[in-house]
């Protein structure tokens, strides 16, 4: 175990806990927001990029939300966030959603301490390790872009509509189906932005990209085809028989 306690940022709902009664460990920094649902996954990723070892989202227990279901919206967002964190290499455990009633016996301090210890046991944040820093940093950038992607946010925003009610074709999507769909899209978006960032630095071939990211060349090619259609990437030149791709300055 290392000597320094981890730096933890807690985004807390304005209505969740009363300041006077909180006993917060000194390594946990509280940032008040109006509702946990306010937390854009991209903002949480940015917080990691800024040097946080762990991020906690604290909100009200489901029936207590001041904004009807803001806390439930955050639940799905955190699911997506965890997936993105796994992809970036930070690990899903570094983010935690805490939906508790302030009236419970255990105060916020208890949960904060518990989370702080969990993070401590995980060890140093990969971002702080010199040999990993640049890769992780690039990954976080890609994840941030992915979290801001139109496709993902529409899906996330319409989650309630799709799972609770129906889509335009009168179909209802089950929670499991929705989660699977979300996972698929998160992964796809992340890989696309990763490719985008890599090719922006220098033109790359499919094989190179597949090697750096550790995925099958066929999958990379599929994404590249898609990105070319969207105008995110273009053929730069052909070296021998290998085409090299370069990102376009669009988004």
């Amino acid at each position, binding site marked *: 175990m290392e000597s320094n306690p981890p730096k933890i940022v807690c985004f807390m709902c304005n209505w969740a806990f009363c300041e006077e009664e909180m006993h917060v460990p000194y390594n946990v920094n509280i940032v008040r927001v109006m509702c946990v*649902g*306010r*937390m854009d996954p991209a903002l949480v990723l940015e917080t990691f990029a800024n040097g946080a070892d762990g991020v906690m989202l604290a909100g009200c227990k489901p029936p207590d939300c001041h904004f*009807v279901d803001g806390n439930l*919206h955050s639940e799905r967002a955190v699911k997506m966030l965890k997936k993105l964190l796994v992809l970036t290499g930070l690990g899903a455990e570094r983010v935690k959603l805490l939906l508790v009633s302030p009236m419970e016996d255990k105060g916020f301090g208890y949960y904060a301490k518990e989370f702080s210890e969990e993070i401590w046991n995980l060890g140093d944040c990969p971002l702080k390790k010199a040999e990993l820093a640049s890769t992780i940093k690039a990954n976080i950038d890609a994840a941030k872009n992915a979290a801001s992607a139109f496709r993902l946010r*529409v899906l996330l*925003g319409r989650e309630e509509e799709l799972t609770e009610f129906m889509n335009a074709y009168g179909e209802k999507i089950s929670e499991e189906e929705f989660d699977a769909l979300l996972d698929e899209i998160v992964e796809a978006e992340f890989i696309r932005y990763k490719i985008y960032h890599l090719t922006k630095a220098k033109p790359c071939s499919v094989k190179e990209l597949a090697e750096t990211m550790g995925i099958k060349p066929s999958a990379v090619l599929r994404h590249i085809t898609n990105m070319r259609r969207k105008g995110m990437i273009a053929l730069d030149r052909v070296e021998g028989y290998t085409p090299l791709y370069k990102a376009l300055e669009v988004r």
Partner: protein
Amino acid sequence: MTEKTLQEVRKLPPCRAACPAHVNVQAYVALIQRGKFKEAVEVIRKDLPFPAICGRVCFSPCEDACARVNLDQAVAVRALKRLVADIEREHGRVSAEPVPKKYSDKVAIIGAGPAGLTAAYELAKLGYPVTVFERMAEPGGMMRYCIPDFRLEKFVVANEIAYIKDLGVEIKTGVEFGKDITIESLKKDGYKAVFIAIGTQLGMRLNVPGEDLEGVVNAVDFLRTIALGKQITIGERVAVIGGGNTAIDAARTVKKLGAKEVMILYRRSREEMPALPHEVELAEKDGIKFHFLVAPKQIIGENGRVKAVECLRMRLGEPDESGRRRPIPIAFSEHQYEVDMVIPALGQVAETSSLPPELLSKEKRGPPVQVDPLTMETNVSGVFAGGDIATGPASIIEAVGAGKRAAVSIHRFLTGQDLRKDRDEEKIEETTWVKDWRLLEKKKRRYDAPIEKPHLSFEEARGYLEKLKQKARFEAFRCLGCGPCAECLASMDLCEGDKAVVDEAKCVGCNVCAVICPVEAIKKNEKGVAQVNEDLCRGCGLCAARCPEQAITMKKLSNEQILAMVSAALKG
């Protein structure tokens, strides 16, 4: 941000809209949630000078209007109000600063009941020299002399009135209107405006034979005698006639004083009783019997004393103008109840003898003084009237509402403004978002303020109070905050005026924001661009977090602001 006046805020949550005094319920419940009990009382005092009194005996129209009933039960607003007011008093109230007299026009208020005291309170806050004239030895009116001690303690009333006195209101007791003072004498003494709030003091008569027998005591007189601390002979078997709160109060009082058997005779059924259901339950617990659908035909006496009440059975017919079903007597259904005391509690009427004849209403039915319900002015210039005298017997909170309206009118009258401008009560709009109840799971929690104080040591009492506070906060958390921003001023630094702003150039009209907004404050307009309704927007920022094109930002807590807070936190 300065607090908006009621004239400016038209959109109110249901509880505040339902309250005759428009007390900012949502705000103080929000403050209780955050554990700010002192501030909560201050918020109540802005609209209502009697937090502790109303916390005990108000009929709580706010709870009836509460949107939470769609889920489980209304938030126990009255109990919360009582608790915060009690905590403030127990901790020792900091006396109010006298308000400097900004105006020189003297105002006379006749009757130190809820209506008169509220008008005095509001006018004193504006800076008028106010004098309240009261016939009885102590101010408080019906609150002091008609509500028994076990429902409303005298020291509570005294404490609330002391607060009004602290503001600089002069209360002259033992002055009878019509005898010691008249409107002319007041005008001569330099009072520029008069507010008559003498209430309805006489118990209504039964109008059956035998009413003058010994042992028939009207409920109002009975309760007043008790409140004055005088002796009164109590019967062994007592019949209370009527179904209002006064009837319940009289019945419970007489039972507590030692009557062996107390019964309440009411001509309609239980559902139509105007008394608070909670009070009825308590009366039943006290062992009071209820006989429904009976009306007295005559009181039978023996040697000048009451021996029995003869009653007729009733059945319920069509609803009358009050909306309750009219009782119709059933022929030949006479029966007798053996009693030695009868307490009629049918309602009150005003003592019209003290009023100048020009004020009296021409109509036989209805209240004795006719006033404009909006401005409270009578047909005599400079004379206003309100409370029970102008509406017929009603409740404390309605009297408070009347007092407040009268205070506004008197202020406008003395400063020469238009009395009616921008004062439409109808314009107050009940606004809630409540979109889909299915999204919220059902959860039962019910909170009742403890009725009796336990006997505890100092250490225990401390823990007990903490527990109570915790319980109250728990209850307050049930509030859905279903109105627009309550302006509780609880967390100004964070939520003050935070509204979503749409960058129209970026918006693609995907409608995600409209789907996600919990309060339906954002909608696509005819141009196909999202538009924020600032009245409804409560600044949660869900739309900003989900907007696919990031076209929505928050005015105050923007993404950049949050990130700045994060980096400040990580550096520190």
